[in-house]
C-alpha cells in the first residue's frame, strides 16, 4: 500500500510563489493497494488533479470510493471538479459522518445548488452512493479495511484507519487536541470552560484514538497550527505538531506525517517546521515527515530518501492536471 498527497493545505487553496513547493491545494490523499485498488480520503481542491490522473489511466468508467472526514468546504469543494463525475457509467461511493442534522446526500448535493455551481451533482452522468459511517464500526472497501475514528472538531469529524496489504496507515484530520476544548454541535466564540462530563468525553475520544492507532505504520495528522498560533485559536479545531507527536508516542506508531498546513505558512516556514519536528521526532523514535503535494509514501516500508518538496515539473501531482482539459463545466 502507498499513499499520495494531492492537497495538503487547510482552510482554503493558496496559490502563489510562496507555496509552489509544498503546494496550495486543500485536503486530498489517495491510498493505493499493491494490486492497484484506490481509496480517496477527502475531496478538497487536490481532488481535481487526482481526478484528471485517474481518468487518464482509466480504460473504462470506474467506481471511486471517497472517505470524507467531514464536510467543511476545504474537504469537499474539489468534488464538482472531479472529472470522472462527468463520465457516464462512473460510480462514486461517498462515505461520511452524518453531521449538522442533514442527510449526507443533501449536504453533498448542496455544494452544487444552482447558486454555487452551474451543474447539480444530482444531474451529472456519474452515479453517487452515500454511506453513513459510525466511529468504531469497521467496514470494507474492496480489500481495504476501514475504521472510522471520532475526532474533536466543530460539529464533528472522523479520522480513518486503513488496513491493506498487511500494513496500515491512518488519516487523523481535522482535529483539535483532547484537553482544552470540546467541540460540540454549536458555534464556539472562544474556548468554553470544560465540565467534568466534557473532560471525560475528551478522555474517551483520546483513548479510543490511541487504541485504534495501535499497530499503525504511518499517521497523517492535522497539524495546522504552530504552538504560537494554537494559543491564539485553541477553539478552531486544529492541532500542532507537538500535540500530534504526543498522540503518536502514546500509540507507538512508526511515522507521523504533518498535514493540513495553515494557508498562511510559506514554503520557508514549512521547511523550518519540517526540520524542527524531524529532529523532535527523532528524540522519541518517531520519523516525522511533512507532507507536500505530490509526495508518495510507501506504507510499512522505509521512506524514499529523495522525497523532498521540490519544484514539481508541469503535470506532476501538484500541477493541477494542466495537460488535461477535464470534462464538464468549470
Amino acid at each position, binding site marked *: 500500500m502507498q499513499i499520495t498527497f494531492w492537497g495538503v493545505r487547510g482552510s482554503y487553496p493558496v496559490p502563489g510563489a510562496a507555496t509552489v513547493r509544498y503546494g496550495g491545494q486543500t485536503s486530498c490523499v489517495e491510498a493505493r493497494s499493491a494490486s492497484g485498488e484506490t481509496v480517496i480520503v477527502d475531496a478538497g481542491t487536490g481532488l481535481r488533479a487526482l481526478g484528471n490522473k485517474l481518468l487518464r489511466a482509466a480504460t473504462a468508467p470506474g467506481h471511486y470510493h471517497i472517505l470524507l472526514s467531514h464536510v467543511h468546504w476545504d474537504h469537499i469543494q474539489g468534488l464538482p471538479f472531479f472529472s470522472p463525475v462527468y463520465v457516464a457509467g462512473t460510480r462514486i461511493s461517498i462515505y461520511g459522518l452524518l453531521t449538522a442534522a442533514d442527510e449526507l446526500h443533501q449536504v453533498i448535493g448542496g455544494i452544487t445548488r444552482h447558486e454555487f455551481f452551474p451543474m447539480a451533482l444530482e444531474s451529472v452522468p456519474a452515479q453517487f452512493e452515500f454511506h453513513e459511517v459510525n466511529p468504531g464500526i469497521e467496514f470494507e472497501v474492496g480489500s481495504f479495511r476501514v475504521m472510522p475514528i471520532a475526532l474533536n472538531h466543530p460539529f464533528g469529524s472522523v479520522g480513518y484507519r486503513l488496513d491493506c496489504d498487511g500494513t496500515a496507515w491512518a488519516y487523523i484530520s481535522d482535529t483539535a487536541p483532547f484537553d482544552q476544548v470540546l467541540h460540540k454541535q454549536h*458555534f464556539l466564540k472562544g474556548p468554553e470552560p470544560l465540565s467534568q462530563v466534557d473532560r471525560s468525553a475528551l478522555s474517551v475520544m483520546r483513548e479510543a484514538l490511541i487504541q485504534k492507532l495501535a499497530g499503525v505504520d504511518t499517521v497523517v495528522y492535522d497539524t495546522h497550527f504552530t504552538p504560537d498560533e494554537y494559543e491564539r485559536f485553541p477553539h478552531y479545531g486544529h492541532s500542532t505538531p507537538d500535540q500530534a507527536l504526543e498522540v503518536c508516542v502514546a500509540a507507538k506508531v512508526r511515522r507521523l506525517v504533518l498535514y493540513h498546513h495553515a494557508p498562511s505558512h510559506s514554503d520557508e516556514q514549512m521547511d523550518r517546521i519540517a526540520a524542527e519536528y524531524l529532529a523532535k521526532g527523532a528524540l522519541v523514535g518517531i520519523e516525522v515527515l511533512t507532507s507536500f503535494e505530490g509526495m508518495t509514501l510507501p506504507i510499512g516500508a522505509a521512506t524514499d530518501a529523495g522525497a523532498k518538496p521540490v519544484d514539481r515539473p508541469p503535470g506532476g501531482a501538484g500541477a493541477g492536471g494542466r495537460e488535461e482539459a477535464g470534462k464538464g*463545466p468549470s
Partner: protein
Amino acid sequence: MKIRFWGTRGSFAMSGREFLRYGGNTTSVELVNAAGQRLLIDLGTGATELGKQLMAGEFGKGQGTLPILLSHTHLDHIQGLPFFTPFFIKGNQIRILGAAPSMTSLESTLQNQLAPHYSPLNGLENLAAGVSIDTITPGETITLPGFEVRTAAVPHGSMWTTAFRITADGKTVTYLSDVEYASVDEPLEVAVELARDADLLIHDAMHADHDYDLRRGWGHSPARAGVIVAERAGAKKLALFHHSPDATDEMIDEVVARTAARTSVPVFAAAEGEYLEI
C-alpha cells in the same frame, strides 16, 4: 482611479509554478479612487490576500468601511468570504451588494455557504464586523461613497450575472465577467452600452478562441468576445479575465498575442500584482 487584480482565475484556484505570473487565485478586483475610497468586486480566493493587507490600516482597528459588489454567487466568486479577515474585526462596516439568485435570496445563499456543516463560522451573524446584505436589481444605478455603479444583467449559461460600470474621478471601468452571449459576433446591446467609452473593459475570456466550440453553452466567453464588445463600445483598453484553470502562463501569453493581433484596442491579460492607474 487605481485598480488591482487580486484574483483573475475562473472556476478553480490553481497553485503551482506555471500559474505564477497571471496568478492562480479566483476572482477579486479592487478599485481605489483618488480620495482613497475603496470598492471590491467579487470575493474569490484573491480577496483573502487583500483582506490581510487591509488589516495594516483602518480595518485592523475596526474603522474600515468597504462596499463589495458580487457579480453572482458561484463559489469561485464567494469562496474567499469566510477568510476575508476584515469580517472578523468588530467595528468594520462591510456592505455586500448583489442580485438575488433565482428562487432564493442573496442573504440565505451566503448563510448557506456558512452553514454549520460547511463552515465553522456557522452563519453571517458570527462575523464580528457590521455586515449588511443589499439586494440590487440589475439595471439600477447605485451610488457608493466615491463611486457610481451602473448595473446590468447578462447571460451566464442558464442563469444571469450582474455586470458593473463603475465611474470615479472621471474614469470608467466595466466589469463583464462570467458572461456568454448567444452569438459571440453579436454581443448583447446592454453589454456594449455598459462598456461604452470605458477606460478599461474587464471581460470574461475563459476560453481560448480555438477551444470555444467544445465549451459553447457553459456560460463563458472566448477571448475574442471581449474584443468585439470593446470595439463596438469604443472602450479604450481591454483586460482578458477569468482565465481557465487549465491555462498556464504560457497559454495565456499566446491568447493575448493572438487577441492583440486582431484589434487596435490595447489588450492585456489581467494578472495578480500591482496597482494599475486607470
